[in-house]
């Protein structure tokens, strides 16, 4: 099976102060330590762990939003550490989809226009955009709400729009950082089921982070992080070493 993500001994630390790195008082906090992970196409993977365990940092690194201090990450076989900013931007635009904890929809756009945005920045023709937006909204059950602005949608609906936006350009990988954190249990379960359904139906690879143990029941593979370290990588069938 095709490998989508390969995280090789990645560490990420952040400066704690404004001193230059050569200064004796300079100090760092380590958000991720020597993490390794392989993800194959079509997987539905959860990164679990308490707050501050490094989930967001790992997703940011896989999503080319941040760069590791040491180690390297391959996405779709491309070593992201070798990419220039424009190359990383292109990779995110074409190969990745993002779902954020706070939905992060563009407030002045309607639901349909939000979903259309990734196609817009890829330069997809207008007719094709319309068709793909309609399909994406239908796949998340929001065709009837296409022309509503985000402020008129419920939290669950907004996150479903965000999911439609993340999949509309048919990416290789969808990264969802705590997508259920701002949803009630019912909506959270529905969202995970929706993403799982899309994973099953369209073969899309999903990596999402959560600290909600109840949602992990719906997940085939769970990578657990604690204090920036991968402490386990297990599937419903057993451990993956």
């Amino acid at each position, binding site marked *: 099976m095709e490998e989508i993500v390969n995280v090789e001994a990645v560490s990420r630390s952040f400066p704690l102060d404004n001193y230059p790195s050569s200064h004796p008082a300079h100090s760092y906090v380590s958000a991720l330590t020597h993490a390794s992970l392989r993800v194959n196409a079509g997987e539905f993977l959860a990164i679990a762990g308490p707050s501050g365990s490094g989930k967001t940092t790992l997703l940011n690194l896989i999503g080319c939003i941040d760069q590791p201090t040491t180690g390297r990450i391959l996405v779709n076989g491309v070593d992201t550490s070798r990419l220039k900013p424009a190359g990383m931007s292109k990779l995110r*635009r074409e190969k990745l989809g993002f779902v954020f904890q706070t939905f992060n929809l563009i407030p002045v756009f309607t639901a349909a226009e939000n979903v259309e945005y990734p196609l817009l920045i890829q330069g997809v023709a207008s007719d094709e955009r319309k068709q793909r937006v309609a399909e994406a909204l239908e796949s998340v059950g929001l065709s009837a709400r296409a022309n509503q602005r985000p402020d008129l949608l419920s939290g669950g609906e907004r996150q479903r729009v965000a999911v439609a936006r993340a999949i509309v350009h048919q990416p290789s990988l969808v990264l969802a950082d705590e997508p259920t954190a701002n949803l009630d249990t019912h909506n959270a379960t529905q969202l995970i089921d929706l993403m799982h359904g899309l994973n099953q139906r369209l073969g899309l690879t999903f990596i999402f982070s959560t600290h909600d143990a109840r949602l992990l029941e719906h997940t085939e593979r769970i990578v657990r992080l604690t204090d920036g370290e991968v402490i386990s990588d297990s599937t419903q069938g057993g451990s993956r070493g």
Partner: protein
Amino acid sequence: MAKFLLLAFRNIFRNRRRTIMTLLMVGGGVAGLLLSGGYFAFMTHGLREDTINSGLGHLQIFTADHFNRDEVRVLDTGIDNWRQVAAAVKTGNHVRGIAPRIDFYGMVSNGTKAAGFMGAAVDPEAEKSLGFTTWIESGRNLDPKPNGEVEALIGKGLAKSMNVGIGDGLTVLAMTSDGALNGVDVQIVGIINSGAPERDERYLRITLPAAQRLLQSDRVTNLVVGLDATQNTDQAYSEMMPRLNGLSQHLVLKKWIDLATYYKQVNTMFNGIFLFMGVIVFFMVLMSSVNTLLMSMFERTREIGTMLAMGTPRAWIIALFMVEATLLGLVGAVVGLVAGNLLGLLLNASGLHMPPPPGYNVPMPFKVRFVPLEMIGSSLLVIFSLAIASIVPAFRASRLKIAEALSHV
């Protein structure tokens, strides 16, 4: 592209109160420029037409000697075959008429007191046909063919100085073209108030034949050409030059603008003030807009981070902010144009007057003239100011660190 513009346009109205404040500021700048520029334009346009109609005309014909040397004797640099010259140019395009003139100097006396004067000899019919202002405050204009005594119009100040009024007589003394002193008795038929007291203290006007008899010369100082419209001056000038070149005397043709020193000074001053105001408006809009646009950028940090995370090129973010600012400038310019024109109409209907300018004693109407070029220029100025103001916020937005921007609260 359309969606991109739509996004920029909708972003303008996200924070309505701030947008309204910005639009008021930008619109106020445009309206202010329109009103001040319109007032200056009204003043300069009025001054231009007043200057031309005061007797300057649109074109004037002189001998070359008039500019090359001073007169040794009166009219020795004048035009001698002036009727032939007038006939040669009279048939030109846009020419409405020709008025011969003599400028001369001398003394006037009431029998007990004498004073110097600046005289102008005119053809009253020609002057009237060209619509030149006579400035007669009381009395009547000169009779072109008087029976009996020579008629004269004198300035209000000169009349006061000589203690004479309409119907009184004066003796006018001047040097003839032969260098002899000659005199003529004149009867005052009108008092002139040109609005410029300094001129009126020394001004005297008689008919051309009377002056030629006094000065013992058939020459004239110059020929004043009146056209159908001021904007045809350049064309008429170009067409008239070859006609003059074919004549025996070396003649030169001058445009009104070359002779209107005061008009040029006033125009230059107004242009300077308008330019200064434009610079002030530019910096006013620039400074306040930078602040507004930076606030907008900070408020949208997470949204910009999201757009960058989704792979939006950084150049798009720069363009988005610049287009937003430009659109804001465009809307502000429209607001300013509407407000400026409405205020201008109100002002024109108000009948307000400004105090007379230096050297004049007639109040100036406080009106504005609507000049399309000023409207375009003012609008472009504020649009440009906002576009410049957006550069800093646009580049800061485009350089946001995505991970930090996404966690921005």
